[in-house]
């Protein structure tokens, strides 16, 4: 029993550290450290730097241009990425539709789509949820009817993150309504957002940010060659993708970075006040979250160790999403509490690069409540935490 890295893994860790030190653009680093969001151009610039380095397809097999990294290497990478406070890669292309295409897609689809996904030349978004289909995803109603050599798609998708920038959308659509189980008759389809009949309506979230959208399809013609895999098997493909999404959203490395930063931050005086580190109640809350996070870190490592040695991950892996998001949200609240009154000013403009007025608060304090509000989504997306518990109750506890 040991938790040390092998010599080869230590060399890799050095390489990753050097990359983030030398290649991560300084202007992005400064923006991120000041609590500013990156605009889409920054995001693409960063992802293309990763592509140049050969690190775009972290989970992809080597034959499709991926890294072929071991689980431990991926863990090391995620840790260094978080420590650099570098942005996460937008997952819809590289982490979601890419793996579905190389696993279930045709040779032609692989050649057509994978290179551009890997190179971040095409922006993808996700069309799963519908206004009437949230946790009960299998009730989805968007229809795709085969007419000659194309499908005609009609319906509405919602919560489509960053869909306003997207070139393409991958969707679960109903191609057959005459089925015994609702999970049958659902297909996985790729749709060009420029197709006639596609419209995008913004949804503003509680923090005032345009992050998600409702996407309407009105008799949109989609060529049959955009169907991925077999017709009616979309539910199976979609589940593979969701499992992937769930593992990624534990966010252990990010949470560790944010807690460490907060521990340092509270040692200093803000506006002449006594350092928050003297507040016993606050420090107890902080310490309690640190304990939970340390436990989750080792839960994740246990999963990695199992997978690395060729075993299936055990029940410990199933709790990563629920616990991971609970911890993220607890940390968000700690930042709000640390900011005190200065969690209140609603001044989103000051986190824009062109802001020239008087800055309010210190060290992105006023961003804390907006982040807290925004990340209430974490326990809702990717299958709400209650749905996760249903799944664990059924598949792990056998209830």
């Amino acid at each position, binding site marked *: 029993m040991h938790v040390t890295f092998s010599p080869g893994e230590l060399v890799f860790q050095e390489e990753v550290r050097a990359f983030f030190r030398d290649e991560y653009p300084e202007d992005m680093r400064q923006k991120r450290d000041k609590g500013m969001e990156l605009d889409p151009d920054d995001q693409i610039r960063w992802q293309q730097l990763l592509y140049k380095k050969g690190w775009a397809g972290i989970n992809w097999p080597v034959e499709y241009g991926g890294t072929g990294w071991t689980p431990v290497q991926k863990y090391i990478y995620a840790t260094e990425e978080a420590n650099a406070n570098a942005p996460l890669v937008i997952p819809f292309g590289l982490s979601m539709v890419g793996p579905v295409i190389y696993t279930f897609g045709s040779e032609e689809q692989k050649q057509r789509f994978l290179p551009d996904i890997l190179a971040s030349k095409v922006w993808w978004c996700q069309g799963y949820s519908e206004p009437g289909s949230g946790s009960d995803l299998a009730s989805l109603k968007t229809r795709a009817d085969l007419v000659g050599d194309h499908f005609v798609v009609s319906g509405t998708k919602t919560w489509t993150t960053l869909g306003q920038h997207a070139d393409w959308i991958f969707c679960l659509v109903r191609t057959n309504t005459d089925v015994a189980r609702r999970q049958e008759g659902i297909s996985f389809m790729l749709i060009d957002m420029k197709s006639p009949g596609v419209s995008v309506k913004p949804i503003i979230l509680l923090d005032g940010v345009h992050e998600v959208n409702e996407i309407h399809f009105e008799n949109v013609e989609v060529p049959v060659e955009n169907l991925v895999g077999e017709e009616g098997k979309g539910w199976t493909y979609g589940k593979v993708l969701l499992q992937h999404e769930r593992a990624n959203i534990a966010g252990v490395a990010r949470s560790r970075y944010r807690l460490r930063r907060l521990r340092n931050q509270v040692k200093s005086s803000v506006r002449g006040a006594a350092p928050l580190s003297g507040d016993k109640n606050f*420090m107890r809350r902080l310490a309690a979250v*640190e304990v939970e996070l340390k436990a989750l870190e*080792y839960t994740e*490592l246990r999963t990695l160790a199992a997978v690395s040695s060729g075993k299936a991950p055990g029940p410990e892996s199933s709790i990563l999403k629920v*616990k991971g998001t609970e911890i993220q949200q607890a940390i968000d609240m700690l930042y709000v509490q640390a900011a005190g009154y200065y969690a209140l000013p609603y001044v989103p403009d000051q986190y824009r690069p062109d802001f020239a007025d008087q800055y309010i608060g210190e060290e992105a304090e006023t961003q804390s409540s907006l982040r807290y509000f925004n990340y209430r989504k974490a326990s809702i997306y990717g299958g709400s935490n209650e749905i996760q518990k249903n799944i664990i*109750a059924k598949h792990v506890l*056998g209830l």
Partner: protein
Amino acid sequence: MDFSLNEVQEMLADSIEKFIDNEYPFDARQTYAASESGFSADVWKTFAELGWTTVPFSEDDGGFNGDQVDVMVMMQRFGRGLLVEPFLANIVLAGGILKRVGSAAQKQQWLQGIMSGELQATLAFTEPQARYDIANIATTATADGADWVLNGQKGLVFNGGTSDLIIVPARTSGKQDAESGITLFAVPADTAGMSINAYHTVDGLRAAELTLNDVRVSRDAVLGGKDEGFVALDETIDDATLAICAEAVGIMQVLKDKTVEYSKNRSQFGVPIGSFQALQHRMVDMLTVCEQAQSLLLWATMTVAEGGAEAKRAVSSIKYLVGTSGQTLGEEAVQLHGGMGVTWDLDVAHYFKRLTAISQLFGNADWHLDKLAA
């Protein structure tokens, strides 16, 4: 990175599991707990014959050269079996002091007997006024010629009523709560002036209040250096804290498993109660606590075994988790068993009581959270 047990640990785990499955059913445990001594002398003999009593001692001392990880492997399984035998008092506490600061002669005199199972020993680690501060020692030891004379009171001496040897920390200099000025004494329980008031504890185990009234021992009884006992005491209590946390995690896993099993078999309103979502989610929470506690236990134990700067944080972290979400898990197990959960007959209640006792030992959750918050 590797969380698997090595070959030796695998064997150790396997032999303990077999022993519990074949020879330590719950009703036997209850019989041993209710017996005169509070444990089975035969079972303790088996512990010694199988070498379990030698695990954390060096080969030079005649031991197995094990470390905290090996003890964790054992204690977690002892927890699952809810064993009442005095492994903590003899091996982790008294043995922990002797192996650290005992001279060759003292080890020969005491440790050999502990390992062979012929001698019962314990450590008087706390005093009535000390709460969780192990440095708070009012018991005094005064030099008198070649002897030392001890006076004072010790509380909750595990297995004090059946111990042949009690290791007594006493103040030889300094203020009452100073870390320096503590000296450790090996005191035979039958020494004149030792008054031992033994009792049952709520978890089915035994302890005693000890009064020392002009207890006279020779200078050979001093373990380690005069005034320098704190380090060994502190390290030993850290080991003991990890050990009972491993025991607690074993107990938590049993409680979770028994609860899930019960919910599949117990029918109400014509269906198994495990089909109710309100209960399913609570059992998922119990699973989550078990997995988190297992993970943290592994980290904490490996960290202490490797002796890093984080060792103290590691001990406090796992004890805090056991004392908070672990304790809640125990309450949930009782709750989900309904009326049966609050009966003496059902094993669940006894696992729960031991878990509750562990929460109070060697610093409760608040005590350790304050250390982590500092």
